């Protein structure tokens, strides 16, 4: 995208019918570190890559619990994401208080989208620079939505946003048709494998990713590092190996943990 004379104001249309400021806001989403969401009929998994500013600092939190039945993963301007998460928590808790009942995700997502739209139509505001993957449960089952800075929202079976998300999307495109019927464990494994795709060769360690799950009878919560490492160990026997290792392990939910199994050549992945 190049600078042009129609991109200064969010309230200025280009002659070709584009709002450049809104499009630039969507660029900000692509700069953030990757976040991934996938869902089955009964569960939603949200995962993100832990990127730290420097070796000295801790990584930024990109996944937030909105309620027991809703979680959100963000990519882009984390500060904007935090503010919107607070809004979502507020809406959810107000609904729960008045109706003693969980807020349907679909309705929360529309309110969020309407809030984002306002910022695309006021000259004194700017669009939120964050993309949100909202996963949640309502009467009609599990849902995964993506909310953009433009005020649009879409429902997905699986999606990835942020930098190098295209690699994850390609992986998900190959597998998404089976997700609806996936078990909880398989869904988690696919999420971690998708995260691995975005790392482009870097060794996958549990410290590099955050994974969260929610489902029917399972309130939103984060997986601890140990559980994530266990899943990684089921396919990360030989790190250079492609996902053949992952595909052969379809049944091995929690294989015995082998810390630092990176260089282990003894057990060929196919034999599990």
């Amino acid at each position, binding site marked *: 995208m190049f600078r042009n004379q129609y991109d200064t104001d969010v309230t200025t249309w280009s002659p070709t019918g584009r709002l450049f400021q809104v499009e630039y806001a969507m660029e900000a989403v692509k700069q953030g570190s990757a976040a991934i969401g996938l869902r089955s009929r009964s569960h939603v998994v949200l995962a993100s890559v832990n990127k730290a500013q420097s070796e000295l600092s801790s990584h930024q939190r990109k996944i937030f619990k909105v309620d027991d039945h809703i979680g959100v993963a963000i990519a882009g301007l984390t500060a904007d994401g935090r503010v919107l998460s607070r809004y979502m928590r507020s809406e959810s808790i107000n609904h729960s*208080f*008045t*109706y*003693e*009942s969980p807020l*349907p995700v*679909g*309705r929360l997502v*529309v309110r969020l989208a309407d809030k984002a739209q306002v910022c695309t139509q006021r000259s004194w505001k700017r669009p939120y620079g964050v993309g949100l993957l909202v996963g949640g449960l*309502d*009467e*009609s089952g599990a849902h995964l939505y993506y909310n953009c800075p433009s005020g649009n929202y879409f429902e997905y079976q699986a999606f990835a946003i942020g930098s190098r998300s295209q690699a994850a999307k390609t992986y998900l495109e190959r597998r998404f048709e089976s997700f609806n019927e996936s078990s909880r464990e398989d869904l988690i494994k696919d999420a971690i494998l998708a995260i691995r795709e975005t790392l482009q060769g870097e060794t996958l360690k549990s410290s590099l990713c955050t994974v969260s799950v929610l489902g029917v009878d399972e309130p939103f919560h984060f997986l601890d590092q140990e559980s994530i490492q266990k899943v990684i160990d089921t396919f990360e026997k030989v790190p250079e190996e492609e996902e053949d290792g992952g595909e052969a392990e379809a049944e091995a939910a929690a294989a015995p943990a082998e810390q630092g199994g990176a260089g282990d050549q003894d057990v060929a992945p196919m034999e599990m």
Partner: protein
Amino acid sequence: MTFTIPIDNGDSVKNAEADSQRTLYPYVTGTSIVAIKYKDGVLMASDMGGSYGSTLRYKNIERMKAIGKHSLLGASGEISDFQEILRYLDELVLNDNMWDDGNSLGPKEVHNYLTRVMYNRRNKFNPLWNTLVLGGVKNGESYLGMVSMIGVSFEDNHVATGFGNHLARPILRDEWHADLSFEDGVKLLEKCMRVLLYRDRSAINKLQIAKITEEGVTVSQPYSLKTFWEFKAFNNPTAGAEGSW
């Protein structure tokens, strides 16, 4: 920077003029509602009377109404406040339908919404002078609850308002059991309504029974109960105590 103190007429506790804006006492009132859970859902009974103080003035008031697809609301107390509540609920159901997204308000949500409304009004010293009974069925689960004018709210297998609490509930405590058939449920409610008819002076002999199941709400046509006034004791009631009545 100028600072003006707003003139607020809303403080109904201290301001006499604002008093005309709030409910002080009820005028046209409905008497008891009795409701029970049964095998397929909930049964509710009420008479069709609206009293104006001690006068039995209105004889065709429907005090039970369907709310959305899954709920049935019965009210005793001030009839105009009941109508106001129906307007609130109308708006609620309308907005719920406008979402058009496969989610719908169940009886639990309506009950809690009403609890919030009643309690908030009570806090402003401007109550809606009703005791409400909310029954419904959603996804196979029956729900029956009550909210009073001060916001006291609870659920139970059988509820009643006003005189019903004193005359009907004891009967229900003895004779209600889970999985009553429709016929047994109606018989039980009629037993309660008959006692109320004999003993509650604001009750009239014209009642309706409403039923809510997974399929929806049906309110019966109004009918009367058979009564018997030839008890010996009524023939000469003061026989035992001359001068009394």
